[in-house]
């Protein structure tokens, strides 16, 4: 790298960590250190079970879990004995619930911010409902919707609704007043003000809410399935639990973790696509 030749303290400049060429490990810790952590964790697991002999009815050894995973994933997606089918059901419930919860959360957020009288009159109820553990509603869902899809979608929507609502409200309040004045000085219509200024200004906040909600969506779907379901990863967990089959249970738990990770990853990709400007602003240190 070309450095300007200065006669003052060149040694310091070379020594500064930001100027030194980064090693591969430092540049891509997600491809080097992250897999190393995984290997270390699996090694500990293997040591605990196969070497030090932790009983398999408490912690199944890794190779058993791997076998269960391969067995479950080698089935066709329409085979109810395989994992793909149940994962598909759970993801479908989570996505539908997330969609409904996010749409309602964002809409309500805009409405109660745009008309403050609505905000102030509804706020106590919103806070009250927020402080209620939504999981407590799950048994009620069975009563209302039975064992089908609707109950899981409902509970997921209720759980994902709040992070989106709260972040939308924060985003609305964070819109620079000058942007609104700019629109008003150009005689912008209310609709233009909302669609061309306020909504895009809120996007980074909206995505922050969606990122949280995407992980909670899986939680909602699984909790819904715990209460009563005929399919889905949560139902599988309950089934293996009753049969004391710990290895497939661990396999399903791993699968749930990966699903949540992927949902969140997709959300971050969408954010990068539609909010590229927000990340650039942060990177340059401006608000």
């Amino acid at each position: 790298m070309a450095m300007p030749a200065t006669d003052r303290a060149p040694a310091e400049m070379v020594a500064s960590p930001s100027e030194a060429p980064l090693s591969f490990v430092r540049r891509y810790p997600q491809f080097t250190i992250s897999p190393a952590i995984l290997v270390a964790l699996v090694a500990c697991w293997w040591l605990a079970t196969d070497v030090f002999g932790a009983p398999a009815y408490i912690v199944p050894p890794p190779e058993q879990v791997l076998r269960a995973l391969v067995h479950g994933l080698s089935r066709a997606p329409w085979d109810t004995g395989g994992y793909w089918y149940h994962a598909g059901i759970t993801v479908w419930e989570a996505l539908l619930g997330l969609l409904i919860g996010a749409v309602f959360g964002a809409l309500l957020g805009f409405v109660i911010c745009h008309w403050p009288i609505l905000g102030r009159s509804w706020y106590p109820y919103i806070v009250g409902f927020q402080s209620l553990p939504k999981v407590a509603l799950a048994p009620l869902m069975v009563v209302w919707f039975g064992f089908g899809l609707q109950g899981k979608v409902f509970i997921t929507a209720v759980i994902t609704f709040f992070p989106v609502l709260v972040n939308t409200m924060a985003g609305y309040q964070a819109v620079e007043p000058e942007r609104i004045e700019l629109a008003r000085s150009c005689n912008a219509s209310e609709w233009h003000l909302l669609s061309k200024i306020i909504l895009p200004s809120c996007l980074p906040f909206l995505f922050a809410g969606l990122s949280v909600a995407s992980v909670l969506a899986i939680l909602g779907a699984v909790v819904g399935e715990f209460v009563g379901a005929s399919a889905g990863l949560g139902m599988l967990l309950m089934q293996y639990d009753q049969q004391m089959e710990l290895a497939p249970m661990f396999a399903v738990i791993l699968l749930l973790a990966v699903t949540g990770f992927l949902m969140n990853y997709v959300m971050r990709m969408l954010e990068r696509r539609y909010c590229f400007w927000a990340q650039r602003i942060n990177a340059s240190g401006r608000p």
Partner: protein
Amino acid sequence: MNLARAATVSPRTSADNAQPLIVARGLSKVYGGTDAQRVLALKNLDFQIYDGEFVSVVGQSGCGKSTLLKVLAGLLPYSAGSVELNGKPLRGPSPEAAVVFQSPVLLPWRTVIENVLLPIEFRKLRIADYRQKAADLLALVGLQDFAQRYPFELSGGMQQRAAIVRALVQDPRLLLMDEPFGALDAMTREQMNLELMRIWSGSRKTVFFITHSIAEAIFLSDRVIAMTTRPGTIADIISIDLPRPRDLSIINTDRFGRYAAHLHSLLDAQGGMF
């Protein structure tokens, strides 16, 4: 009554024999609803601004100069008196006036050209009719190569130039500028002053320019309105009879110094420290 006002007419504009573009009479603005919180921001302002004139307002922070600009932009309702813009009472934002804010207020998700055309979208005009004009104006301020860039790729001075182009694209008669160069460093600021002079002398827009820099006000203006603080009133309106075009060397002339000293004394008279 008319005779009294004639005294404030600057030579340049009286020669144009123009109608005043802005006429303010007894203009006052009170903030706050309850009696305890009431703040008199502007008290009884009388002034006129003529077509094609460059008028600056100087005053300490809190003297209500930004409030005055927002009132003229139609963004704030006034409490008493009257304001006429081009012979019509001012009610809300007018297509004849465009605002340049202290910060550029460019939307980060839009490219420079999309930002410049935003007022056209807001006013529901045909964007295609204004593309060429926007490109010409960007070229005028040296941003022709940055039309497709995003604001975060531009320096502060370039962003403020884009904001000025956004105001000009609507072809307003009046440009309301609220300390537009206040956030820029001294060098960029001087450059922007020269550039604004160039744009102004080419377009003959009427400019109402808020600043807290006395030198900037004298350098740019035909007339300078000096405002007192709390309540905001007009201490004096001074005609700047310096030859145009002006360059930065004019700052070192005696006449410039006398104007500066006079304005300083007007602003100091109310016991302000700066």
